[in-house]
């Protein structure tokens, strides 16, 4: 099994970088940035909507969704299309910059002692200490279904 890992555009935590991790099966596409149309009255992490393969899907900042400030916004010029698990139709595009990598499991990492430093930790299913920083697995189904929309 393979995973896609990409760095979060946030400040370091305890001197470590933060990375997001998704299963390859969840990632449907990686494209250069396309025009995003904002939707009024949306929370800050919802950047708008785009049309992708005849579907209207939201564009989100995963950093801001988890309550972090997003740094280097201008460098976030890639969009990663992810979908929910178990064949769910909901999708979103996640803004990201460079540094995307595909790795094969297992990755040498251990569960982090705490996730208290994540403002919206209820949206996280796991945090791991990895040789390059913290790996965060998000509850993408809950995010896409709007269960925890702010």
């Amino acid at each position, binding site marked *: 099994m393979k995973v896609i890992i990409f760095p979060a555009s946030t400040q370091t935590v305890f001197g470590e970088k933060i990375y997001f991790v998704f299963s390859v099966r969840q990632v449907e596409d990686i494209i250069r940035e396309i025009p995003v149309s904002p*939707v*009024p*009255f*949306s929370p800050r992490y919802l950047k708008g*909507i785009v*049309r992708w393969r005849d579907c*209207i*899907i939201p564009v989100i900042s995963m950093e801001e969704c988890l309550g972090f400030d997003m740094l280097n916004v201008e460098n976030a010029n890639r969009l990663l299309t992810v979908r929910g698990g178990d064949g769910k139709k909901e999708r979103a595009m996640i803004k990201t910059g460079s540094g995307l990598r595909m790795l094969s499991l297992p990755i040498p990492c251990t569960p982090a002692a705490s996730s208290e430093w994540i403002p919206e930790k209820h949206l996280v299913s796991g945090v791991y200490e990895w040789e390059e920083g913290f790996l965060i697995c998000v509850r993408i189904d809950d995010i896409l279904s709007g269960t925890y*929309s702010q």
Partner: protein
Amino acid sequence: MADRKDAEKVSCGNKGDRMKEILLFTAGGKHFGLELPMLRSIHRAMPSMIRHDGHDAAYMINDENVPLCDFSEVLGEKSMSENTVGKKIMIVSVCDRAMALMVDRIDRVVSVRPDQIELLPLIFKGKATQWFPKVLWYEERPFLLLNPDGMGYVRHPVLPDGLELMMNQIVRKDAVADIMVRGLSQALKNSVVHGVDRIREILEGHGKKA
């Protein structure tokens, strides 16, 4: 979630369904649409027809004050109420009442298939979906379809000062409660007096018999 998917089938329909006419307009530099049956009329925005009362505004149409919503302002743009040059007023139906929407520009009416209209993704909640539950993708561009009923914007038209004050006093909950308590108290007192009188009559009747 299932409810919303069911609603999608009903509201967005299939390719064989009848075409929908959508009025496209622009406000705050963004593109929007409105299903034509919700539109009553369109007027050129005239500053002399706008009345302000605190945060509320009204637009005079046919000697009637209609609640006014400056669309650019509610979208977070700077209020343009004072500068109405080139702007348009759309009178729309909101819960069977009229509301005036001031927009930057009326573009055109387009006829679209129902399947060109999609629901806003589930991740959007609250005011975003109440105001814009659907999206039309037309000519490589999204148009958020305004749902006037979801705006919750209709308020009472601006009333003359004295009348406004009286209305405010009438709807004050504590004043209404006070009136009701006093009414109930009086009714209870009348009931007790009547009961005492009746008891006295009965007792006096028994006394006479005795």
